[in-house]
C-alpha cells in the first residue's frame, strides 16, 4: 500500500527534476488553483490527524493558524523524531524530501505564513546537508522564495538542528531551543499557534503530516479516504522494529489488525512467540499477544488504552521481561525529563524504585497503591504532553501483565 510513500524508490530522493517527473508540485499547483480556504476544507475532508503523536485534526490546525494576525508567522516542520522505535520521518526525508517541502509550501500558503523552518534532530545530522541542498534546489526552481508560481506569495525555509533533547519535539520546548535557550516547555495558554517562536504565531507540524498533505492534494482526498476505515480514513506510515525478521518502514491502511501489520515484518526472530508490543513510542501503550487482533485505528486502540502515537511498533518476544523493558523506558524518561515540573522529574525516579521492588518481588500493597497514585499524578499534573503521556506504558503493562506485578511473598523468590 503506497500513498504517502508512493515515491519511495521511484527516484533517488535528491533529483528535483525526477520528482517533478513524478508529478511533483502538482499538489501545490492544485492548492493554488483552489485557493487557501478550499484547500483547508480538502484537508479537513481527508480526516488527516497530526502524525507526530498528538493526533490533532490537521485541517483545523491550519485554519487556526490562518486566523492569527501578526507581522511574522512561522511554519515549523517537526523533524525532531525522537520517539524510541520511530524512524519513519527519517525515511520520508531521505527518500522523498521534496514531497515534504511541497507540503510545507501548501501549508504556509494556506496559513499565510512566510517563514518556514525544518527542525531536524541532531541525531540525523547526516541528512542535514541533504535537507539544505533540497531547499536550495526548490528555491532555484521557483518553488521557494518571492512570488512563488506568480501567486504573489513568498515563502522561505531554513534548517535548524536540534541538539539531542527528546522534549524539544514538544512545540514550546522546540521554540525555546530555537531562541537559544534550554528546551523546556512553557505554560499554556497562550498556545504555540498564538505566541510560539519569537512570540509570533507558529504552526508546528510533523514530517509525515506534511508529506500526507502533499499526497492528498496530488492524488485527491477521495482516493485517501477510500483507504482505511470509514471512521479512520487513510494510511499510516509505521516503523516496525524489535525482535522481528524484517524491521522497517511500512505504509498501511488504517483498520488492519496489529497482527497483520507485524506480519509485514515477517514474524518474530527465531520462531518465537510475541511476548508484548509497544505502540506509538516510549510513551505508548504496551499490549500482550492476546490483544494483537485489535484493529489499528484511533478508536480501536483507544479502547485498549493505547494510541497510534508516532506509529512505532516495537515487538518483544516471549523471553523478554516486561519489567526490564519498563525499567528501560523509565530510564529514558529520567534522562530526557527537562526537570521543569515535579510530576515528570520526580515521578519517574519514584517509578524506578517501585519497579525495582516488583522485579525483586518485594513490593507491598502500599507500593502498588503508590505506583498507581504516581501514574495518576503524572498524567494529571505534568506541564507538557510528554509528562502527561509518560505513565501510559506503566499503566497498560500493569493492566495486561498483572502477574509481573505480583506482591512479595506470593511468588517464589529467585
Amino acid at each position, binding site marked *: 500500500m503506497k500513498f504517502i510513500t508512493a515515491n519511495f524508490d521511484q527516484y533517488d530522493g535528491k533529483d528535483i527534476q525526477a520528482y517533478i517527473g513524478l508529478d511533483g508540485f502538482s499538489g501545490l499547483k492544485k492548492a493554488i488553483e483552489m485557493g487557501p480556504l478550499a484547500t483547508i476544507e480538502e484537508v479537513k475532508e481527508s480526516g488527516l490527524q497530526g502524525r507526530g503523536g498528538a493526533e490533532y485534526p490537521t485541517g483545523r490546525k491550519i485554519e487556526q493558524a490562518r486566523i492569527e494576525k501578526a507581522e511574522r508567522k512561522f511554519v515549523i516542520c517537526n523533524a525532531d523524531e525522537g520517539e*524510541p522505535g520511530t524512524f519513519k520521518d527519517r525515511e520520508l526525508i531521505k527518500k522523498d524530501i521534496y514531497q515534504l517541502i511541497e507540503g510545507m509550501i501548501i501549508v504556509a500558503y494556506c496559513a499565510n505564513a512566510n517563514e518556514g523552518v525544518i527542525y531536524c*534532530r541532531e541525531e540525523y545530522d547526516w541528512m542535514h546537508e541533504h535537507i539544505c541542498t533540497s531547499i536550495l534546489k526548490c528555491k532555484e526552481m521557483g518553488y521557494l522564495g518571492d512570488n512563488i508560481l506568480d501567486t504573489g506569495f513568498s515563502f522561505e525555509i531554513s534548517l535548524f538542528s536540534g541538539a*539531542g533533547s527528546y522534549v524539544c519535539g514538544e512545540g514550546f520546548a522546540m521554540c525555546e531551543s530555537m531562541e537559544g535557550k534550554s528546551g523546556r516547555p512553557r505554560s499554556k495558554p497562550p498556545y504555540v499557534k498564538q505566541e510560539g517562536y519569537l512570540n509570533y504565531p507558529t504552526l508546528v507540524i510533523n514530517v509525515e503530516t506534511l508529506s500526507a498533505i502533499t499526497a492528498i492534494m496530488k492524488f485527491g482526498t477521495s482516493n485517501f479516504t477510500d483507504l482505511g476505515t470509514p471512521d479512520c480514513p487513510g494510511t499510516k506510515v509505521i516503523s516496525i*522494529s524489535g525482535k522481528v525478521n524484517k524491521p522497517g518502514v511500512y505504509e498501511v491502511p488504517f483498520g488492519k489488525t496489529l497482527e497483520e501489520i507485524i506480519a509485514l515484518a515477517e514474524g518474530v526472530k527465531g520462531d518465537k512467540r510475541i511476548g508484548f508490543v509497544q505502540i506509538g513510542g516510549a510513551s505508548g501503550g504496551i499490549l500482550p499477544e492476546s490483544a494483537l487482533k485489535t484493529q489499528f485505528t484511533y478508536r480501536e486502540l483507544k479502547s485498549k488504552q493505547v494510541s497510534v502515537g508516532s506509529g512505532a511498533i516495537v515487538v518483544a518476544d516471549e523471553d*523478554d521481561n516486561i519489567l526490564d523493558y519498563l525499567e528501560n523506558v523509565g530510564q*529514558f524518561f529520567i534522562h530526557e525529563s527537562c526537570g521543569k515540573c515535579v510530576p515528570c522529574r520526580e515521578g519517574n525516579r519514584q517509578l524506578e524504585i517501585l519497579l525495582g521492588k516488583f522485579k525483586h518481588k518485594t513490593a507491598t500493597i502500599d507500593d502498588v497503591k503508590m505506583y498507581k497514585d504516581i501514574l495518576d499524578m503524572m498524567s494529571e499534573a505534568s506541564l507538557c504532553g510528554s509528562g502527561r503521556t509518560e505513565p501510559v506504558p506503566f499503566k497498560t503493562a500493569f493492566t495486561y501483565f498483572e502477574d509481573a506485578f505480583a506482591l512479595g511473598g506470593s511468588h517464589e523468590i529467585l
Partner: protein
Amino acid sequence: MVETRVIDGILGAYQNDAVNLLQILLKVQSVEPKNYVSEEVAMYVANHLDIPISRVYEVVTYFAALSHKPQGKHVIQICNTTVCQLNGFNEVLKWFKDALKINPGETTADGLFSMKLTPCIGACDISPAIKIGTNVYGNLTKEKVEEILSELRGAIS
C-alpha cells in the same frame, strides 16, 4: 582554543545574534578538536553575543549533543533505548568496554575515543546501533565493532 577568527566566522554566519545560540554552539563544538565547548570559548561567545556566560552554560549543559568537558576525537554513542536493549545493547556495550578499556562517559588515554550512552538514534531497523560522528553503524557484531575501531584508528595514523 580554536582560532578566534574561526569562531568569529561562525558568529558572523549567525548574525552575532544570541537567538541563534544553540546553532552557534553546535558549530563551535564541531570545529574544536576535542569536541567540546571550553570555558574560554564559552566566555568568548558570551562576550560577543552580549549575554551572560551562565546563559551559554545553561544551553551547553542542557543539550546532550553539547559537552563542556573535553571529549575524544571520535565520540562513540551507543544507543541504550528500548529497541537496542531488546536487540543486544548489553553485549555491544561490553564489546566496546573490552576493546577500549573505558566506561561510558570516559575517554581513552590517547584521546582518540570517548564512549557515551545515548537515547534512540532512529536506527531501530538496524539495531543494535551506534553513532560515531555523522556515521551510523548497525546490526553490530563483535567482529564489526573491531573492524570499526581499527578503521578509525587507521584513519589517524
